[in-house]
C-alpha cells in the first residue's frame, strides 16, 4: 500500500482541488480523504507538491516494432513515466503496421513484456498505411482497438476516407486524422512564409493542413462518425474546428507543446530539432492555438513524440526527418507556457493532458476516484531545470527544447499502483 500525504490534489473529473491524502491499495485507489492514517503503507510526502491523475498522451510514436534503433516500447514508456505520462496511444507507423489481428497481438506481446506504462494501440485506417484499401476495422475492434489513424499520412482518396468513416461509425471506432494535403505540401520543410523565404526552403502552407481538416470534418458530419484532428498547428484549423463544434459535429482535437511554445522564428539557423510536420507556424497561429486551448476548441495536448537518431537529424535541413521527442518535456513546457502565463489553470491543464484524452479514447483513466486505477503523479511545480541531451531516457534526443529552462519536475509516477518512477535525491533523474 502507498499513502500519498498532504499534496494539492487536482482532480477535475471529481471537481476537486484541495489538500488531500490518497491511499493506494494494490492496483487501485482505495481512499481519497483528508488526513488518512495507515501505518502499514509506504508514505510519500507530497507537501507543497501537486498530485494529479497520470497523464494520457494520445499521440506517441514508440517505433517498435520496426525501428528499435529510434525507440522501443520499453524506452518510450520509461520516457513517458518520467514525464508523468501513465497512458500512451501508440501510433501505427511501425513495421509491421497494426492493421490486422496478427500484428496487433505481436505488439501486445511486447507491451506485456517491456511496457512501463499503459500502452493503447492505434490501428491503421488502411492496410500498411498505404492509403489503398481499408484495414478490417471490425477485426481491429474485436481486438479492442477502438481508434484508427494513418498518422504520418493523410488518406488522400476522399472516397476511401468516406468508407473508413462509415465503417468506423458502424463499429464505434474513432478516426484520428493527420491532416495534410500532400499535393500542397510536397517537399516542404518549414512554414510557408517569411521563414521559408529567408531560409530558401520549400514551404508547407497552412492551407495544406486546414483544407484537409475541412474535408475530414465534412466526412465526419456526413457519416455521423467521431473524428479527432491530430497536431493542430494553425489558426485556420482552429477556426474550422471551433465552427464545427458549434455546429454539433462530433469532432475533437489536439495540439502539441511545440505549437504553443515555439514559432517559425525558432528555426532560424537550420536547427533540425525544430523540424516537424506540421511545421512551426507564425505568431498569429501560436496565439490562435492558445485561444483554442482556452475556449475548449482544442481538447487535448499530446506530444507527437517522434524519436529519430542523430544520423537522421545531423544532416542537411531538407533531408532531415520530421519530428521531435516530447514525452519528457511536455508537462514542463505546458506549465511554463500555459500555467505561468495564465492561459490555463491547473484543473484546465489536467483536463487537456489527462481527462479529455482519456474520454476521447474511451478509456477509464484521467481520474483519482476511489476504485479507479492507481495512475498518479506528484509534481514539484516550482522546480526549474534546463533541458539537456544527456538527461533523456528516451533512446533519441531530438528535442525542440534543448537548452531551454523549464519549470516543473515530476517527482513520482505511480502506474497501476506501482511506483514506476522517482526523481531521486542524487540528481534530478535517477530512474530505478
Amino acid at each position, binding site marked *: 500500500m502507498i499513502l500519498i500525504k498532504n499534496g494539492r490534489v487536482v482532480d477535475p473529473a471529481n471537481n476537486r482541488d484541495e489538500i488531500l491524502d490518497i491511499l493506494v491499495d494494490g492496483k487501485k485507489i482505495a481512499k481519497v480523504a483528508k488526513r488518512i492514517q495507515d501505518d502499514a503503507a509506504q508514505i510519500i510526502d507530497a507537501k507543497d507538491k501537486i498530485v494529479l491523475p497520470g497523464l494520457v498522451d494520445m499521440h506517441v510514436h514508440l517505433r517498435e516494432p520496426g525501428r528499435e534503433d529510434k525507440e522501443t516500447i520499453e524506452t518510450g514508456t520509461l520516457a513517458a513515466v518520467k514525464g508523468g505520462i501513465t497512458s500512451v496511444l501508440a501510433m501505427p507507423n511501425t513495421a509491421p503496421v497494426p492493421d490486422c489481428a496478427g500484428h496487433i497481438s505481436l505488439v501486445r506481446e511486447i507491451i506485456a513484456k517491456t511496457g512501463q506504462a499503459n500502452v493503447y494501440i492505434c490501428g491503421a485506417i488502411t492496410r500498411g498505411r498505404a492509403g489503398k484499401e481499408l484495414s478490417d476495422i471490425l477485426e481491429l475492434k474485436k481486438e479492442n482497438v477502438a481508434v484508427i489513424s494513418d498518422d504520418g499520412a493523410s488518406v488522400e482518396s476522399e472516397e476511401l476516407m468516406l468508407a473508413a468513416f462509415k465503417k468506423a461509425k458502424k463499429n464505434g471506432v474513432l478516426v484520428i486524422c493527420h491532416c495534410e494535403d500532400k499535393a500542397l505540401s510536397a517537399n516542404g520543410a518549414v512554414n510557408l512564409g517569411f521563414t521559408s*523565404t529567408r531560409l530558401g*526552403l520549400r*514551404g508547407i502552407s497552412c492551407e495544406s493542413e486546414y483544407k484537409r481538416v475541412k474535408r475530414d470534418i465534412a466526412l465526419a458530419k456526413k457519416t455521423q462518425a467521431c473524428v479527432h484532428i491530430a497536431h493542430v498547428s494553425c489558426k485556420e484549423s482552429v477556426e474550422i474546428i471551433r465552427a464545427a463544434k458549434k455546429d454539433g459535429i462530433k469532432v475533437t482535437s489536439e495540439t502539441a507543446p511545440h505549437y504553443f511554445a515555439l514559432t517559425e522564428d525558432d528555426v532560424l539557423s537550420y536547427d*533540425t530539432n525544430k523540424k516537424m510536420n506540421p511545421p512551426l507556424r507564425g505568431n498569429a497561429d501560436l496565439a490562435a492555438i492558445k485561444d483554442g486551448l482556452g475556449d475548449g476548441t482544442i481538447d487535448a495536448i499530446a506530444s507527437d513524440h517522434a524519436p529519430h537518431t542523430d544520423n537522421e537529424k*545531423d544532416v542537411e*535541413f*531538407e533531408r532531415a526527418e520530421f519530428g521531435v521527442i516530447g514525452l519528457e518535456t511536455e508537462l514542463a513546457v505546458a506549465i511554463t507556457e500555459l500555467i505561468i502565463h495564465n492561459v490555463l489553470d491547473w484543473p484546465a491543464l489536467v483536463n487537456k493532458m489527462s481527462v479529455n484524452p482519456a474520454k476521447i479514447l474511451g478509456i477509464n483513466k484521467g481520474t483519482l476516484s476511489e476504485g479507479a486505477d492507481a495512475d498518479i503523479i506528484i509534481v514539484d511545480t516550482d522546480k526549474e531545470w534546463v533541458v539537456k541531451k544527456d538527461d533523456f531516457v528516451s533512446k533519441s534526443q531530438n528535442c525542440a527544447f534543448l537548452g531551454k529552462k523549464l519549470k516543473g519536475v515530476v517527482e513520482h509516477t505511480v502506474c497501476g499502483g506501482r511506483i514506476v518512477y522517482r526523481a531521486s535525491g542524487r540528481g534530478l533523474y535517477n530512474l530505478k
Partner: protein
Amino acid sequence: MPWVRKDLLGLEDLSKEEIELILSTAESFKEVSTREIKKVPALRGKTVVNLFYEPSTRTRVSFEVAAKRLSADVINIVPHESSVKKGETLIDTGRNIQALKADIVVLRHFASGSADILSRHLDISVVNAGDGWHEHPTQALLDIFTLKEKLGRVSGINVSIVGDIAHSRVARSNIWGLIKLGAEVTICAPKLLIPCEIEKMGVKVTQSIDEALIGADAVNVLRMQFERDSDSAFPQQLEYFKNFGITEGRLKKAKKGIIVMHPGPINRGIEIESAVADGINSVILEQVTNGIAVRMAVLFLVAQAQEKIAFSG
C-alpha cells in the same frame, strides 16, 4: 573594426561594418591581380578545399584563383569522384577534410543551410559558395563591390534585381547586403517566382520590368535556370523574354548609364539580349575580375580570424 568570424555563411548575419571591411580589404587585394607576379604570401602554408556538390565553373575557379594568388594550396573535391557518392554524409566529409589539416572549406551545396550545418560541426573555417536557394554571399559581395566602384557609393542608390527571385541565393544575399548598406532595392519577377513575404526583407516588389528599370542606378539580371526546375511556377522561355528580358529598347527608357550586372553564366536571348550583355552598360566581365579580389579578402579574413582564435585559446 576587426573581423572575428571563422566562417562566412551569409550576409544576413553580417553588420554593415563587417561588409564594409570585406569590401575595403578587397580593394587592397584588387591590385595584386594587376601585378606581373600575381601573388602575395598572405595564406602561404594554408590549405583551401573547394568542396562543390553542385557543378560550378565560375565560382569554383574564382575561389581557386583567389586562394592561389594568396599562395594557399588548393584542393578541389568533386562529389562524383569521391566517397560522397558512396553515401558519406556532409558532416563526415567535412570532418575528414578537417582531419587532413585543411584550414578553409569552400562549400557549394544544393541544400539550403548546408554551410550553417557544416560550420557548427567543424573548427576550421567554412566559406559558403552558395547553398540551395539560401545565400551566395561572395557573389553579392562582388556585385556590391562592383557597384561601389562604378558609382562611388552604395548608400542611397537604387538597385533592381530581375528574374527568378524565389530560387535565387544570389538575390537573397544581394538584398541583405544592399539593404544593410543603405541601398534601395526593387525586385521584379513573374508572380510565381516572387517568394512569400519577401517585402519583409525591406524590398519593393513589382511585376513590371519597366517600373523596375525606371530610376534604377543598376539592374542585376538573374539567370533563368530553366535546366534546373521542372517547377510549374516556371514560365515559357519566350514568354519570359517578352515580359522580363533586358533589351536595348527597354534600357532606353531607363537612366542613362544604368549599370547592367549578371552573375553568369548568361542565357542570351532569354533573360538578356546579346546587345545588352555585350554593350556599354554591361559590367558582367568586370564582376568576374572583382570576384577574385572579393574572394581573396574573404579567405584572408576568415584565416586571420582563425589564427586569432588559435592564438587566444
